[in-house]
């Protein structure tokens, strides 16, 4: 007996000779909102489908509520799934879509009517119950898909990239709705996405996956502030972190990293570093700022992208490109010289051999 509600233990999966999951271990607490995030093909959707019972397990174990479900059919796992394509039954009205699972499970008619009414009222579908999915907008279809999951009163909600088919504005709205629904129901939720903004904004716990392995598990800001390895550092954050290879050099009581082009970047202290140690110097774009004085790093601006509330900038640092942000309005133009200040308290140092955080 442990604290976890959903547990993956040494989970492996391969399609033919291609191995897609290499021993996944993960514990998900009851009522938490866990987001599996990673690039396409990292195995996150496969993991979700295995949890749902739609993909067989090669080896390892999945348990839900302390019950091993490896051989339990999908309908008996206590899960409900929302698909990327919504997967609504196109020939059935919204009401029939919502009630289908209850009808299949031979629920009493009054219970079906009550559940449909309840889900429709939570998701503002009451006026659309007689419509066919083809007569609904993208957002409404998404709500029906969620309603269909809701009526089953599952122990675990599974979402497979549910917002990918929506436009940017609707995506933000639905993101908030899903989060609000989770707060209301407090049901354990596993949510798959490749969108790091969704992962950061929605999750209690983010699971970053790559190439069939879990790279890091933690609270969104914890992962953002302390990425365990180069992959996580580069994957989370937009624009992504600057990762600059170099070697450690010690001066007169000071420490710095000398880049391959000879430029010195400051380090706050020596720490456990050795002289000449090869290192990757990571700094997020928001931790680099335009300096007012001329003491900073001399650079030439190469790209200025005003995004409204912030400006994305690219700079040339003796042949190396640096990305940084400014929340102030920037009047400079590409080609202008400038100076940069790096917030050395926010550095991330990585071992180039192992890719792990130092």
């Amino acid at each position, binding site marked *: 007996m442990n604290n976890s509600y959903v547990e993956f233990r040494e989970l492996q999966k391969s399609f033919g000779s291609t191995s897609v999951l290499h021993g996944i271990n993960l514990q998900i607490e009851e009522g938490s909102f866990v987001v599996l995030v990673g690039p396409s093909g990292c195995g996150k959707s496969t993991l979700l489908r295995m949890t*749902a*019972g*739609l993909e067989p397990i090669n080896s390892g174990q999945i348990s839900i509520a302390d019950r091993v479900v490896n051989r339990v*059919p*999908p*309908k008996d796992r206590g*899960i*409900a*799934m929302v*698909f*990327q*394509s919504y*997967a*609504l*039954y*196109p*020939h059935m009205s919204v009401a029939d879509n919502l009630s*289908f*699972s209850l009808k*299949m*499970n031979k629920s009493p008619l009054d219970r079906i009517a009550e559940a449909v009414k309840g889900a429709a009222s939570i998701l503002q579908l009451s006026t659309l119950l007689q419509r*066919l*999915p*083809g*007569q609904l907008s993208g957002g409404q279809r998404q709500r029906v898909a969620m309603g*269909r999951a809701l009526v*089953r009163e599952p122990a675990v909600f599974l979402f497979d990239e549910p917002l990918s088919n929506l436009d940017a504005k609707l995506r933000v709205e639905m993101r908030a709705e899903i989060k609000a629904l989770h707060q209301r129901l407090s049901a354990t939720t596993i949510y798959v996405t490749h969108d790091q903004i969704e992962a950061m904004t929605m999750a209690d716990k983010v699971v970053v996956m790559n190439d069939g392995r879990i790279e890091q598990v933690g609270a969104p800001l914890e992962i953002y502030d302390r990425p365990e390895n180069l992959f996580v550092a580069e994957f989370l954050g937009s624009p992504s972190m600057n990762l600059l290879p170099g070697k450690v050099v010690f001066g007169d009581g000071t420490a710095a990293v000398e880049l391959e082009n000879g430029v010195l970047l400051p380090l706050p202290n020596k720490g456990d570093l050795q002289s000449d140690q090869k290192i990757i110097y990571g700094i997020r774009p928001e931790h680099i700022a335009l300096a007012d004085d001329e003491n900073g790093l001399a650079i030439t601006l190469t790209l200025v992208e005003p995004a409204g509330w912030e400006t994305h900038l690219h700079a040339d640092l003796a042949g190396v490109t640096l990305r940084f942000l400014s929340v102030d309005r920037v009047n400079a133009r590409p080609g202008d010289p400038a100076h940069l200040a790096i917030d050395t308290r926010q550095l991330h140092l990585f071992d180039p051999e192992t890719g792990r955080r130092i």
Partner: protein
Amino acid sequence: MSETLNHQEQPVLGRERSSLQHYLRRSRRFLLIGLPLAFLVIWTSVPILWAFMASLKEPLEIYESNTFFPRSPSLEAYQTVLAIDGFGKWIFNSVLVTVVATIVPLILSILAAYGFARYFFRFRHILLLLYLVPRIIPRVSLIVPLNDLMSNLGLINTYWVLYITYIASAVPLSTWILVGFFKSVPKEIEESATIDGANMWNRLRYVILPIAWPGVVTAAVLCIREGWNEFAFVLALVTETGMRTLPYALYTLRDSMGVQNFAVYNAFTILTVLPLLIVYLLLERRVVESIVTGAVK
């Protein structure tokens, strides 16, 4: 000043150009689509109309003039056909055999097509190709061995011989059509039904079949047409007059009548074609309805 003039002229020129382009586009569309379609409609409907008009003519009128419309239209030929001894039995035979040769192949091919479309098993593709073999081999080449086989089984001149051969001939065609339609139903919809607790039968009944309904109707129409129009097998495997179907009876009409009466031949033809036309029109509407209501979206 000249700039102002240009500004005024441009919209007028633009309008003229756009209406010319519109006209050209419409003409091109008519040439590429409208004209071939019109030709096709004439090509298919004129023989039927011609037969219908000929069926309304007096027995000897057809020899006297080549006009399209009858001089004094009469239904005499139809009365003659309906009075032919055995005509009712032939219609019954045709309907019975067609109904069986539609329902049974549909049931078999729905199950087979679902398996081919959704389950991955060894030799799936080869099996599906083998399904086509009965359609590839010329039907005439099957007649002698089939006749031999059915004689040995004692099935000649029974409905069974027609059921077996018609069903065997319809299953491959409808299976191939349905595999395509079933494959086009998104896999996620079926997975969603699985999670919702539907077993294989319920998925097929409540999800797959309603979505692929236009495909089922298409397969049904083709089975009906095959069964209704079939000629080679019934000719080879049936000898008794009472076991004939309409196409066979039509074929033998010329010999059985003694006197050449083209009005009667054409009336018989029209009466043979009419039920099929009605079925076509009814089912075609159903297919269009189900597409319009979004069942296949």
